[in-house]
């Protein structure tokens, strides 16, 4: 990371841990619930948000001096919506089945509060390069949590990872299933995503007590 100055490094690294958009700022929770039942969907969502937030932050930052302040939120919405349509159409053309699975959730990127939050809080006041780093950092921080949650939910809920039966076959009773292990269907339901996120928050805060809020 020698190419980045200390300050720029923090833009990428902070959202990965101590300023994570999901576990610390508690943003973007609804998409974290909705699409993490499978690892594959989580990864695609993470990549899509990376694309939208990275480019969106740069676009907003480039326009920051010419955007009329009265309509800046609408301008931000248009930029996100445009990028989301680009993602949606591209998925439909090159990953059709995935796009059917993600269907409404790709559209929901528009309402992902992380994106509008970063536009408003960072890109409007900083140059395009730093905004790009900030966008990438926050999207990675969001994606990491999504992938961790997706990993556990798919592994414990379906006994698969990316569709591969890693724990053996539940019908043929091979692998772990031969000694009586059962999939926990509960993991596939949305509330379990919150519980997994909660566990991540717990682990993170117990390792770094500075993050614990005073009551």
């Amino acid at each position, binding site marked *: 990371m020698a190419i980045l100055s200390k300050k720029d490094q923090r833009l990428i690294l902070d959202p990965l841990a101590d300023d994570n958009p999901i576990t610390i700022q508690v943003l973007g929770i609804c998409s974290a619930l909705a699409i993490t039942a499978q690892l594959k969907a989580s990864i695609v969502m993470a990549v899509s948000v990376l694309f939208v937030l990275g480019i969106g932050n740069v676009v907003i930052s480039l326009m920051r*001096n*010419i*955007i*009329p*302040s*009265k*309509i800046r939120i*609408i*301008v931000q919405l*248009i930029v996100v919506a*445009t990028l989301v*349509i*680009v993602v949606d*159409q*591209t998925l*439909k*053309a*090159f990953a*059709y*089945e995935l796009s059917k699975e993600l269907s409404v959730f790709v559209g929901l990127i528009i309402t992902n509060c992380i994106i509008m939050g970063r536009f408003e809080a960072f890109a409007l006041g900083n140059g395009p390069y730093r905004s790009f780093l900030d966008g990438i950092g926050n999207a990675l921080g969001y994606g990491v949590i999504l992938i961790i949650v997706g990993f556990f939910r798919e592994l414990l809920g379906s006994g698969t990872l990316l569709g591969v039966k890693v724990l053996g076959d539940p*019908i043929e009773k091979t692998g772990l299933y031969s000694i009586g292990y059962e999939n926990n269907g509960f993991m596939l339901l949305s509330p379990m995503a919150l519980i997994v996120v909660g566990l991540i928050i717990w682990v993170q805060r117990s390792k770094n007590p500075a993050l614990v809020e005073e009551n």
Partner: protein
Amino acid sequence: MAKTDGNGYTILFATIMVVVVGGVLAGLAQGLKPAIKENERFEKQQNILYAMGVNENVAGDGGVNFIPTDKVEAEYDKYIKEAYIIQNGKVTQSDEAFTVDMKKQSKLPKNERKMPLFVGERDGKQFFVVPMYGKGLWDAIWGYVALDKDLVVQGVFFDHKGETPGLGANIKERYFMDDFTGEQIMSKTQYSGITVAKGNNDPKNERKDDNKVDALAGATITGDGVSAMIKSTLKSYVPVIKDFKTKA
């Protein structure tokens, strides 16, 4: 900053922004259209084959498994022998049957409607695959039903645009679709269709001649939509398929 606060500037900015964004999106949509159309065609082929029982379903697994997209074109050509369009009682063989837009047709008066029929063959047996289009609770539902020459259902496939997840959306689950297999659409000699029925005293669906399958809990209107769609669509196909039988 004063110059960006004026009303004139704001309107100008908004106008330019909308034009630029509109142009970019229109260009993108045009560029990707062929690829998207191709994907939709594969999906339709998968659905038709699925209803015919050409799929990769595994017994006991409970999931819906289509023929993979890279193989579907070849499989479709192998199994689907002929395609027809039925219009106002007249049956004509036509390759256009595949591209008929069911949504558009459903808005036309009955005697102008083009109704596609796909005739397939698997293991020496003839299948008549009928596309259907109807209305669920929130939005469109559609599907395909495969009949044999004696008007017994051999398989179905349903899909929907926006039924409630976990309730009406379950019409595309295998446990619901599998129930239709073996059902009669005739009640003795009278046409009856198939009703998605609540409390039909046959939840395991052991009686195949009662023209009823067990309903989904919490999905009354979607179920009624499926019944209505089947009933109204298949009615026009019954004489045509009977004709095929006498000719063969």
